[in-house]
């Protein structure tokens, strides 16, 4: 049950190549679980930008001096995030959240690996805390293009049982990709479950590595979204259901968290010929 809240910026700060923005949005923190996301209006009342921008929720505070707050981490990508990066405390910010299906937690105290790419680590950090609270072992793998695009390394170190870092340019950690180091992590820690968030190519690689090893994994995908609440059908990707049929499902309401082995990775961006309702496909 998401809320639309006419909130107010509490703070905004640089974190490496990213910005971290905290918005006062009473009611949302109580409902938020790790993996939920927020949809933020951008550009002000006379803006030419109509659509909200989606951001994974990083941290929430149920009640502070100001009422509940929600924090998210973002990269300046285009016009909307450029506008967001110019927000200052006390500016108005209309937010809708929490949205989507969050990560599902294991019932038992199992060994978990978290794999984050770039700002994709943001939703994994509160997840790590929740998992530790359940007694899980939590090994963290963080990757990014360069050192300034790693988010939450210190926090991960503090929460996690172990941490491995990769960067494409080798500016910190091991040079390479998370998928270069993940197999060793999974083996070493006898990982039972994997959670991942990051670019689609990374999620695909992680999902495949997990599938090979029979390790269940949950991934949080990032598809272009017009509404974020399930009414527009722009955010779909091909996902196999429990009945074995592939459907074009909305990543905003049925995701953004999916089981890694259910996503038809090679066909993301297409409509597989055997999808329900595809021309000539099953109905």
């Amino acid at each position, binding site marked *: 049950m998401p809320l639309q809240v006419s909130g107010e910026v509490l703070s905004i700060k640089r974190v490496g190549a990213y910005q971290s923005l905290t918005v006062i949005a009473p009611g949302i923190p109580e409902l938020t679980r790790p993996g939920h996301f927020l949809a933020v209006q951008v550009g002000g009342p006379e803006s030419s930008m*109509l659509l909200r921008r989606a951001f994974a929720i990083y941290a929430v505070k149920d009640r502070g001096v100001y009422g509940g707050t929600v924090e998210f981490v973002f990269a300046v990508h285009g016009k909307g995030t450029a506008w967001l990066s110019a927000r200052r405390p006390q500016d108005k910010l*209309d937010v809708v959240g929490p949205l989507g299906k969050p990560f599902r937690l294991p019932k038992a105290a199992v060994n978990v690996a978290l794999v984050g790419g770039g700002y994709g680590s943001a939703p994994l950090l509160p997840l790590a805390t929740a998992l530790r609270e359940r007694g899980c072992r939590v090994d963290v793998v963080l990757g990014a293009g360069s050192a300034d695009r790693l988010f939450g390394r210190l926090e991960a170190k503090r929460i996690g049982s172990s941490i491995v870092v990769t960067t494409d340019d080798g500016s910190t950690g091991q040079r390479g990709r998370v998928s270069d180091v993940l197999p060793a992590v999974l083996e070493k820690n006898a990982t039972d479950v994997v959670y991942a968030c990051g670019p689609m190519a990374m999620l695909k690689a992680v999902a495949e590595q997990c599938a090979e090893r029979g390790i269940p994994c949950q991934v949080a995908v990032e598809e*272009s979204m017009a509404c974020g609440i399930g009414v527009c*059908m*722009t955010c779909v990707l091909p996902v196999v259901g429990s009945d074995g049929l592939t459907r*074009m499902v909305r990543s905003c309401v049925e995701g953004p968290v999916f089981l890694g082995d259910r996503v038809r990775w090679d066909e993301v*961006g297409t*409509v597989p010929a055997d999808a329900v*309702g595809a021309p000539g496909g099953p*109905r």
Partner: protein
Amino acid sequence: MSVDVTTVLAGTSFPNPVFTASGCAAAGQELHQFFDVAGLGGVVTKSIMLNARSGRATPRMAETPSGMLNSIGLQGPGIEHFLDHDLPWLAERGARAVVSIAGGSVEDYALLASQLRGRPGVAMVEVNISCPNVEDRGQVFACDAKASSGVVNAVRKNTDAGIPVFAKLSPDVTDIVGIARSCVDAGADGLSMINTLLGMVIDTTTMRPALAGITGGLSGPAIRPVAVRCVWQVHQALPEVPILGMGGIRTGLDALEFLLAGASAVSIGTVVFGDPTAPVRILDELTRALEERGIERLRDVVGLAHRPPRTVVPEEPDPVGDDLPAAVVLDEPARAEVPS
């Protein structure tokens, strides 16, 4: 003063004139998380087809200045699922369902309409004729008067007598009044307008079309002036035909613009994506706007902008003569030139 915001579309009454727009509210469930959809004039459903349909590949959308392009390809579960799940859900909540139907042939439309017969909760049928006609080289029905009237006629014939059938027109035509007339002649009880304009965006990084479907439908405030013009032209030509107006409505004043142009009710589409509670806000703003203008009944503003400024008189003789809103009795020289 309290304003009577009820409206009547082809004999069917609605408690207020604010509806959702087809394809911008699914079948109501998602928006119901934000407000009671039974409080709207009506819920216009995503266009329903006979069978399940996967829609187009992604990317399916691109944001444009004050608008967006979409190329969904009518993804949906098909009419059976709709009748089993979505329509009962709407009916149970007391929402008035305006069922939008879409097909690839006249027969598809006829079958869809007949399946809706006698179903509780159906307040109205909206015929989305902006679909390619598979029997005519994929020509869009709405772009041809004859094709449009064929579809409308089939739907009207297969729909319960008490249920209004509205044809939804495309603005991508040389003569929208001609198409409107054909639809009405073919039995349409009213007209919904406008559907999206055909548009396109090219991604300057990949240097390829931004949408997988290459072209898409342009919607949002960017197209509002085109929509108001279409409503105006059709109301001018066919003043007795009720119109459900839409295209870029963002505020109560935008909704009022459509009513003044000749619409009896309005649909809120794209703006909902950025502002899920927009329909209730807009109803509120519209009601206040009418109040401020001293208007007691919403019906009285329908088409009001067509009447020459000096001839506007209260419908009942008004002995005092000064509760007529000042704005209605114009007499500025700047307006005297307006052609009629």
